[in-house]
């Protein structure tokens, strides 16, 4: 039973496998609208495709991304500066292309149509470019989409794609009304994120217009004008990081002792992305089936409700029962939050202390004002003195406390100045005494001599690689989605997935053939076969037996389960269970004994 949840929000383990007790858990659903400028400038042909096609590519990417990672979120696309007017409120030159809905296969395929051909036929036939519009109307349209959405939304965000750094052309009213509407939306917790479309030759000065319009949107922790991306890949990265607001997993207090408390948000910089589980469909209509679980007594058939049941553990043949609430009570200790216990030098954080992925904490002025100030001071001194803070950490009401090491983290940026790791503290989970396993040390360890180490060094130098966090995609997950997508979009073949986890043996051989050979020659005797020593010949063959005769003699019990299973396969018998007795029963029956 996991206590944390790196998955899709919610405290699932609070209800574990309790039969019948499937209360609907409110899961936050977010809304994302892509607002795309369709004025003529967006269609200028460039090396990497027009800005319009780049924006559509981003939209396709964002839709697929939503489908893959948050498929309950709502997604919409709005064009502005179109010749046509297609929106429920008849705002001029605004077109709602995709209503705010859960995206699906048609979302992706419809969007892809816009960039099927270089002449943008689909676009020209249905929308067309114009150069007059009111930005405030575009904002109104999006705002209405959000408010008419049938589901209660968590975050609401607009990504605005444009290449125009001053659409007002000096028109004060245009600017003021846009700014007023943007301010209004900000008050209603709708974010607008500007994605400037630029090339190296077309500068984009956000000060001209956008900074003033989006002035109210500067949240404490986020900038609302994305770093201008010049390449397609950069742009995709920007979209990926901006398409969802950074949401703290939880916000809680960090207690330094006594009543000195600051507030922090806890974030998951990294979480395991898993393959979504399969669903059951009715094969005649493809509709989803609801699953109902129930528990009943074997003897009487009486259906049991959660309150009829208890949790039990068996030790030395004795059942010991607890109410579920009692188990929660055993986990509870103290308040939710982080409680400082002291500081230790970094070297006391041993390399093998790892039981679960780390989390990240960042100050929360909204909880306690002054938090950022104190947090920054702690960060600064911990960095300088190379110490970590040891805390007791209770993440939720029914989670038991764990110990975490708060490790100071400096901000890291790449060459373009894009933030890679924010400044703050990582919370590294420490193991308990119970979690260490005794492993026998290697007896009489053999250590390499300096020549051998030298050869290894040569090998290492010739096989040097960079490593970045987002370098390698999960091949199993990618394959799964490629397959689902291929069927959903009715494609002949799924997109080919390259397994980036596989070593490029060819390239390695090329780069390191000499070092590999020297290493091999020095360390491996010519007659050495890896792994051969242990086995000592081919695996033992199954003794020649006549199962039928053995069955008659009642001697089947002498055979191992593995062999019995093989026999079953040979004579095509399916035992009821996997226990030895079941298999022998089945075989006896088969041979008529």
């Amino acid at each position, binding site marked *: 039973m996991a206590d944390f949840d790196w998955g899709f929000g919610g405290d699932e383990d609070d209800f574990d496998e309790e039969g019948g007790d499937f209360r609907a858990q409110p899961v936050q659903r977010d809304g994302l609208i892509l607002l795309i400028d369709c004025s003529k400038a967006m269609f200028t042909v460039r090396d990497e495709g027009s800005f319009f096609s780049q924006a559509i590519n981003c939209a396709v990417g964002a839709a697929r991304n939503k489908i893959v990672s948050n498929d309950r979120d709502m997604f919409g696309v709005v064009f502005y500066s179109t010749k046509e007017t297609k929106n429920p409120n008849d705002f001029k030159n605004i077109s709602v292309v995709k209503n705010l809905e859960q*995206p699906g296969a048609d979302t992706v395929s419809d969007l892809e149509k816009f960039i099927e051909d270089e002449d943008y036929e689909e676009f020209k036939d249905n929308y067309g470019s114009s150069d007059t519009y009111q930005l405030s109307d575009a904002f109104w349209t999006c705002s209405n989409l959000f408010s008419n959405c049938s589901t209660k939304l968590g975050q609401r965000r607009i990504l605005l794609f444009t290449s125009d750094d001053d659409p007002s052309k000096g028109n004060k009213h245009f600017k003021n009304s846009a700014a007023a509407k943007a301010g209004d939306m900000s008050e209603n917790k709708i974010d607008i994120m500007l994605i400037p479309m630029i090339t190296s030759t077309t500068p984009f000065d956000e000060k001209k217009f956008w900074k003033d319009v989006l002035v109210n949107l500067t949240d404490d922790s986020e900038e609302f004008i994305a770093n201008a991306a010049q390449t397609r890949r950069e742009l995709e990265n920007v979209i990926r990081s901006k398409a969802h607001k950074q949401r703290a997993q939880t916000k809680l207090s960090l207690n330094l002792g006594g009543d000195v408390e600051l*507030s922090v948000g806890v974030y998951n910089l*990294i979480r395991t992305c898993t393959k979504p589980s399969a669903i059951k469909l*009715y094969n005649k209509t493809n509709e989803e089936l609801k699953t109902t679980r129930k528990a009943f007594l074997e003897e009487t058939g009486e259906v049991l409700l959660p309150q009829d049941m208890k949790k039990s553990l068996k030790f030395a043949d004795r*059942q010991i029962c607890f109410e579920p609430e009692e188990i929660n009570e055993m986990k509870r200790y*103290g308040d939710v939050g982080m409680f400082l216990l002291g500081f230790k030098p970094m070297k006391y954080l041993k390399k093998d202390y*790892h039981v679960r992925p780390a989390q990240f904490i960042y100050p929360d002025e909204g909880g306690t004002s002054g938090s950022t100030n104190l947090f920054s001071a702690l960060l600064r001194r911990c960095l300088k003195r190379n110490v970590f803070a040891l805390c*007791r950490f209770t993440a939720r009401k029914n989670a*038991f406390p764990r110990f975490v090491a708060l490790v100071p983290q400096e901000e890291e940026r790449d060459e373009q100045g894009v933030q890679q790791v924010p400044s703050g503290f990582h919370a590294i989970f420490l193991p308990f005494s119970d979690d260490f396993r005794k492993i026998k040390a290697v007896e009489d360890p053999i250590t390499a001599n300096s020549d051998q180490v030298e050869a290894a060094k040569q090998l290492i130098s010739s096989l040097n690689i960079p490593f970045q966090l987002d370098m390698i995609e999960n091949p199993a997950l990618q394959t799964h989605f490629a397959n689902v997508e291929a069927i959903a979009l009715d494609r002949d073949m799924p997109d080919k997935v390259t397994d980036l986890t596989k*070593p490029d043996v060819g390239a390695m051989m090329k780069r390191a053939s000499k070092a590999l050979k020297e290493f091999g020659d020095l360390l491996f005797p010519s007659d050495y076969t890896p792994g051969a020593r242990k086995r000592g010949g081919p695996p033992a063959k199954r003794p020649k037996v006549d199962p039928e005769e053995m069955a008659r003699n009642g001697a089947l019990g002498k055979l191992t389960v593995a062999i019995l299973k093989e026999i079953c396969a040979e004579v095509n018998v399916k035992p009821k269970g996997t226990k030895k007795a079941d298999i022998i029963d089945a075989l006896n029956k088969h041979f008529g004994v």
Partner: protein
Amino acid sequence: MASEKEAIAIVLDVGPSMDSAAEGDRTKLQESIDCIHMILQRKLFSESKDEVSLILIGSDETANELADDDSYNNISVARPLATVTWPFLEFVQNDISPTDNETDFLDGIVVAADHLRSQTMGKRGFVSSKIILFSDLAGPVADNQLDAITKSLKSADIALNVIGVDPDEDESDEDRKPPQGGAGPSTAPHRKPKTPQQKLGEKIVNHILEAVDGECYTFSETWEFLSNYQSKSVRPTAWKCQLDIAENVKIPINAYIRVKEAKSKGFKTVYAKDPESTIIRESTHHLNDEEETEVERKDMVQGHRYGSTLVPFSDEDLQAMKFRSEKCFQVLGFTSRENVNRYMFMGDSTMIVHPEKGDEVAAAALSSLIKACQQMNKVVIVRRCYSASSSPKIGVLEPDIDEKKNRERFFYHDLPFAEDVRRFTMSTLPYSEETITDYNDKFKPSDDQLDVVDGLIDSMMLVVKDEDGEKIEEKKPKNLFNPYLQRLYHCLNHRANDTTEALPGPSDRLVESLEMSERVKEASNNQLKKVKETFPLKRVAKAKGKDTADNVFNIEEKDAEGESSEKKPRMDDVELSDLQKEKVDKIGTVTPVEDFLAILSQKDRDRYDEACEMIRERIIQLVFDSFGSQLFSKAIDCLRAYRAQTLKHSEPRDFNKFLFSLKESLFQKNKKAFWKLMIEEKLGLVTKLESEESSVTKAEGDDFLTEVVEEKIKEEAPPKEDADELLDMM
């Protein structure tokens, strides 16, 4: 394969001297029984295969195989060698009482050794045996057989531990460290001096201990390392594979899990009235139609979601599309240590990589890589596939060399895939002079503040030097036990004896391990005050969970005040309201209905009037700010919701009042289109038929909701101040 287990004979002296006080006012026998009980519990809950027997010396009856008329009397094998059972625990707790029989403890050791020998002979799996003697060694002792006894213990490889010996008062205790860090034995100041008999006994024991493995402990020393429950130990099994580098280098390795969270045995759900009865669980699948028609398994097909699109998969599809791989451990390359940081580690465990056992070639090859990595400050990026049926992972091998222990190894951790990484961009904190920006300047700590934080860190250092200059680490993970498991075992033991009583709270020892130590608390007290003075901290909103936490968790304080558990809110109560409470404080224009309902659903205080006022405000704004009829539908929704809530709360007066003034304004400001909508939607006055509180009759209500009858409105118009209020709102 038979597992490795130990045979343990506990020899307990129940003679008269054990009935005297040990430390505090408990007798030595009681202390011994507590220790034995704990030893047995630890065995039981860790589901140990070890076998334990209990031999009483000084017992009234004589029951052992060596006894005859004049020797080995008053010694009884109370529980023969076996795995620990509940009756054994109950026996120890309830059925042992002191006697007047003084018996030679050496005889007890002989009986125990003989018992261990006879019970383990010919049985598989025993790898060691040990006698634990609980005695103050005050009884008579005959040392003429001493050498023979020592010899036979040594040849049978039986270890001896003696518990209950009083600490020496004259000799210094320095070279005897308590078995696990922390406080030493508490020496009672007014201890009775040792009798000559005890001194002789100790000499004899020490003589034996010179030859065989073992140690003498006081009760407090023993308790020190017994008082934590033990989790089930996991026998490490090797994951065997070959570390491949390109094509031609293959190093056979054995990888073991070194650190992984220990969990309790899984709970089983049982029928409360009869835990032994069998519960059948069944799941059925239904169509989403009115009858909820059940669908049979053969009519079902597996599918996956592609957003809102449902994609069916046939069995063939599934087979054809399965991702395949094979067991492997392959080097992708070597990279600088700085590129891999521990916050990136995924998975739930640390693995250790050793060379294949007994393979010297593999050992040298792996050693050369470990050493080279260490010297070059590199780590290895690898692809790991546990088995053919599992999907591949990427991971990192980090060298770990301990020259003193002559130990070299790689640690392995999983690394994240691109999909697992969520890019969070957060404003730079002013943690150095270089990182100060216009934006964060206001948070910049001053020099004074930094000094205070430095002082705090100094006062709270957990690694300190003792008098000898030795470094002592407080709160070391190896000494900190999983608090949930500790309590679980404690409660299990409690519940096993008594099924009705409430569960015990956390033990003092557990609390101590979870809290700031007294030393640190004292040392940091002044510094904390300074922090409070120099850093202005002001709570803005209650952090989530805080309010409930105050009520639920502060067990100690509440108990002290005597108003304990009844006030604890049940968990379920808090959850939903908690979620909704968040943020919704105002009714906005975007989702006014939801906001309205959310505020009403806040159970912690009554905000009905407040919410109604806000929704009225919002309706007026929506109607009169609307260009044309753009926002009318939204305003209608609000009005409908407001009306429904009015009925629910049976407070129709304000609503009716509002409706009158609204109608008036609509006519004045020429928003008759909205009035028409209200008529269409039948959003009229709440009448007596609908709510008893209303003073409006059905006829009046019908009248109201017609096109224009101005006089009637006037007749029943609301008091004047309300109309003014309404205009103010507009």
